[in-house]
């Protein structure tokens, strides 16, 4: 990979001191309540707002407590690359952690984890978009995680689907993302960063995480990913729980879009006024 030579990067050998800090071995929930006082099945409070980037065709911003994700959608516009003609549109997804968003500093370039996330995000959104409505064109989706406190992919899925709807891209349904952490016989919805599954702790079987993208009005799963070694029955239970939780998110998404539609129509009428002015003078 070519690196960006214009930016001054630190020496290659440096390591963040946090890497050597001993992590707390046990999940707090095993010894009582979750550390933020939630019960295992509750989501964190969500703040969702569409239309936050004025230059983009559509955009959205989501906060799940300390997880903050921003998404902007551009297009549909002409396919830039000289690709084969296709009757279907193309979606281009870029998922990026902001350099300061995680425990460790992220680099400016997309690393392999972020590339993997981009692919998963694309897989989650593609089934929801009417691709045949914009032949020969592409839609670009840029997702930036501003602060990562767990469940970033789930938040990104929700945020990106709202941004797509906000951009006026034809869709079959919205996609709500939800992730759970599986710890023995416990299933924790919407895990924070400290609750998330990390492979370096020596976890026995049935420790892992599942993320689901769910289309609430079609009752269809658009994306599913898991990490860690999990038994069949447990993962089944986790998927069901994810689906049900995503369903509860649906009214939140709808309300957010309803609110933004008002501002959208306002903007549209303003531009009409501007147009009239242009014609007059």
């Amino acid at each position: 990979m070519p690196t960006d030579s214009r930016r001054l990067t630190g020496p290659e050998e440096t390591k963040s001191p946090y890497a050597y800090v001993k992590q707390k071995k046990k999940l707090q929930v095993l010894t009582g309540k979750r550390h933020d006082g939630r019960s295992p099945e509750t989501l964190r409070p969500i703040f969702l707002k569409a239309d936050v980037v004025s230059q983009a065709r559509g955009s959205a911003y989501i906060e799940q407590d300390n997880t903050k994700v921003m998404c902007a959608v551009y297009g549909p516009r002409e396919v830039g690359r000289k690709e084969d003609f296709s009757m279907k549109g193309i979606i281009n997804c870029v998922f990026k952690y902001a350099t300061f968003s995680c425990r460790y500093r992220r680099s400016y370039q997309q690393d392999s984890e972020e590339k993997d996330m981009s692919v998963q995000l694309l897989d989650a959104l593609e089934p929801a978009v009417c691709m045949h409505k914009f032949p020969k064109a592409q839609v670009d989706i840029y997702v930036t995680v501003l602060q990562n406190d767990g469940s970033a992919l789930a938040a990104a899925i929700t945020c990106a689907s709202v941004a797509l709807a906000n951009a006026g891209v034809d869709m079959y349904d919205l996609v709500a993302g939800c992730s759970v952490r599986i710890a023995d016989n416990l299933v924790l919805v919407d895990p924070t960063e400290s609750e998330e599954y990390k492979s370096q702790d020596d976890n026995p079987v049935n420790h892992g995480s599942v993320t689901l993208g769910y289309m609430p009005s079609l009752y269809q799963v658009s994306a599913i990913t898991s990490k860690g070694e999990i038994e069949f029955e447990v993962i089944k239970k986790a998927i069901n729980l994810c689906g049900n939780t995503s369903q509860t998110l649906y009214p939140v998404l709808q309300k957010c879009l309803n609110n933004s539609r008002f501002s959208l129509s306002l903007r549209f009428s303003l531009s009409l006024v501007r147009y009239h002015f242009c014609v007059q003078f």
Partner: protein
Amino acid sequence: MVDVQLSDAEKVFILHGVQDNCREDGRGCEDYRHLEIETSVMSNTNGSARVRLANTDILVGVKAELGTPSPEKLNKGRIEFFVDCSANATPEFEGRGGEDLATDISNMLYRAYDCPNCFDLQQLCVIPDQQCWILYVDILLLECGGNLFDATSLAVKAALFNTSIPTVTVTKDEGVVDLEISDDPYDVQRLDMKSSPCIVTLSKVGHSHVVDASQKEECCTLARLIMGVTEKGTITALKKEGSGSLDPTSIEDMMETGRRVGESLNKCLMDALAEEERQGTKKKSLGFLR
């Protein structure tokens, strides 16, 4: 992805066949195609394997190198997957054309192997905090005939099973640590691959799902479920791919099939590898000169 062009009529033909549990090549929905595995094919690697699943041809070489462990896992070694899509498979892979597919496959492998029970990284530790083995698993995709994920995972498991790492003796002399790497080809350490996962891909064709989809069948599917399954039937990684969506109940069905198929696939692979191992040097190595 390497695609073949299919007309609507051909797609309908495949679709109806799958519905009746009879696929275009006569298989049932849960049958694999003919699979050939050969290990120790490349002499300058620590372990290697070649898998040929009908048309799909994959060569895996494992090289072990000594290095420093990463700070999060000080008492463990590392395993690195690198996939190279050779232009031999299709001219589309020329230059950097195969990179997207390559990262897809390697990310899935990372995820499937990323749990302590299915591949114990502690066996790669030489001196805690200082030296460990890094296993470079290099996957070369020579021909694409569908179902790349499964074939790759089989080849990777076979190559890791075949891998022998030279024994290292650590001596401490007045605070100076000295590493002595044995060059005796029989003084080696083998890897425990018993509980490592295989990847099983289930492609949704019409209302049913099939395992080991051929290229033509991959053309007819909109959604695939890719899962890493161990011999015990636990699921180490799960991923949905493709532009279609899936019903929750059909996901359950697919996972059930995947688990069943994955268990027997693991078993068959380990049996075949043990059989090959038993033959030892008597086996005539052929490689590509079949």
